[in-house]
């Protein structure tokens, strides 16, 4: 099992990293995901966008295999989501930072690194990647909200996963840091990592190679940012998204899920 953990993603991968078919999830009595079909290409950044409450987090949980599915299936890196092998290859950063506030930044990253047999060097690298070197020996609980979410990110980066699932990683970050992080995500994608990044801020969509637009548990469209601004008739991606939503509401007979893919 260690050889898998040690294998860092080498070179751009091709093919499909994640696919879902007829995915339904009901939480409590509320249908959260209502029949999703899509495929996410490997080695690029896919943005998962939609208003809050549209099912982004539940979809990410389904991909991580921590969500009980009502029906349908999710395949991740050729295995059913939640397969034990995937624990070596998939990283997950939840929306609220899940780290230990009473440990130093370094201790947090080293602990999660230890789960993947990574040591001090990899931990230092992950901390540097999120720009927290100066805070490495500070107690995590004393950091600001934005720093805290970067610690959480470093705890996932340290494992060097082939698929990285990030739930709203840029919330609460200042513009400079946000640009830094997107730059880092891009270079990870270039070296073969698949990233799925959720956001409810449409302007971030421009950083993604491909977009999944989610609304009320349904896939509104899967397209590129360029296609979104074209179909939404606006260079402003937020306006374009709103336009798409209005169109979908006016023509309920058409099925927006069948939107063109690049």
């Amino acid at each position: 099992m260690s050889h898998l953990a040690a294998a860092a993603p080498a070179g751009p991968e091709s093919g499909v990293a994640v696919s879902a078919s007829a995915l339904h999830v009901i939480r409590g009595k509320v249908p959260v995901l209502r029949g999703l079909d899509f495929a996410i290409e490997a080695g690029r950044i896919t943005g998962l966008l939609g208003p809050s409450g549209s099912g982004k987090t539940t979809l990410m949980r389904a991909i991580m295999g921590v969500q009980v599915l009502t029906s349908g299936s999710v395949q991740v890196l050729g295995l059913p989501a939640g397969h034990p092998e995937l624990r070596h290859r998939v990283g997950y950063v939840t929306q609220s930072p899940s780290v230990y506030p009473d440990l130093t930044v370094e201790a947090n990253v080293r602990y999660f690194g230890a789960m993947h047999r990574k040591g001090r060097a990899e931990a230092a690298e992950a901390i540097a990647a999120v720009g927290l070197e100066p805070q490495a020996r500070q107690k995590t609980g004393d950091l600001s909200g934005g720093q805290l979410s970067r610690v959480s990110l470093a705890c996932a980066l340290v494992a060097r996963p082939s698929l990285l699932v990030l739930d709203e990683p840029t919330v609460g970050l200042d513009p400079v840091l946000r640009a830094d992080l997107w730059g880092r995500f891009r270079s990870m994608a270039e070296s073969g990592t698949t990233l799925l990044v959720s956001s409810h801020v449409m302007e971030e969509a421009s950083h993604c190679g491909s977009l999944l637009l989610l609304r009320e548990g349904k896939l509104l469209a899967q397209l590129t940012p360029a296609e979104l601004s074209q179909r939404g008739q606006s260079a402003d991606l937020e306006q374009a998204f709103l336009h798409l939503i209005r169109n979908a509401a006016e023509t309920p007979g058409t099925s927006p899920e069948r939107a063109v893919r690049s």
Partner: protein
Amino acid sequence: MMMLATTRRVLDQLRHDHRSVALILVVPALLLTAVYFLYENETLLPGVPRTFDRVGLMMLAIFPFVVMFLVTSITMLRERTSGTLERLLTTPIHKADLLFGYGLAFSIMAALQSLVATAVAYWIFGLDIQGSPGLVVMIAVINAVLGVALGLLCSAFARTEFQAVQFMPVVVVPQILLCGLFVARDRMNEVLEAVSNVLPLTFSVDALQQVATNTEPTDELWMDAGVIVAIVLAVLVLASLTLRRRTA
């Protein structure tokens, strides 16, 4: 490997919390002092052991049980509510790594705690028993692990720290009442005695009484210890069932 990383992490968390460390190490010794002075003026018939030798000894087993139950159930509950548990379970860690990692970390704390308390009992208050103090510490550590195991299990049934603390009267107090500390077990009515027969703390107290009255470890002592260890393992298995990788 992952188990030791977990142990190191839990101890590291505790190390940053000086107040908790102080409470764990000092409070039992202080309470023991209170017990000593409580019975300071008792009139003893010749040949009858001091009450302190009986009650103080049992306290040495009960403290680590209570403290570790509380510490573990709160720590584990935090792990569940903060999302770190769910995150950990998406990594290659085995549930056993996590549970035994916790168990080992708190056993180390318990060993330190009982060393302090036992030292105070022996050297300051002249605790007078037949058996070796090493056996007393051993029983105390086994008891601490029992507290850890029950705490891990109970944390699954609490949603808040407030609820977790409420489990103490449910899980811990009955065991203290029925373990033979207040009334000798053979003088309880049948129902209470039957209940006390299956409570883990009963075996610890019995084991300590064996240590108190025999210079060499007896078979009954080892049997008691074996029963507690078996209960600990059973509770840990139950606790591992509450660690779900997949939730609704």
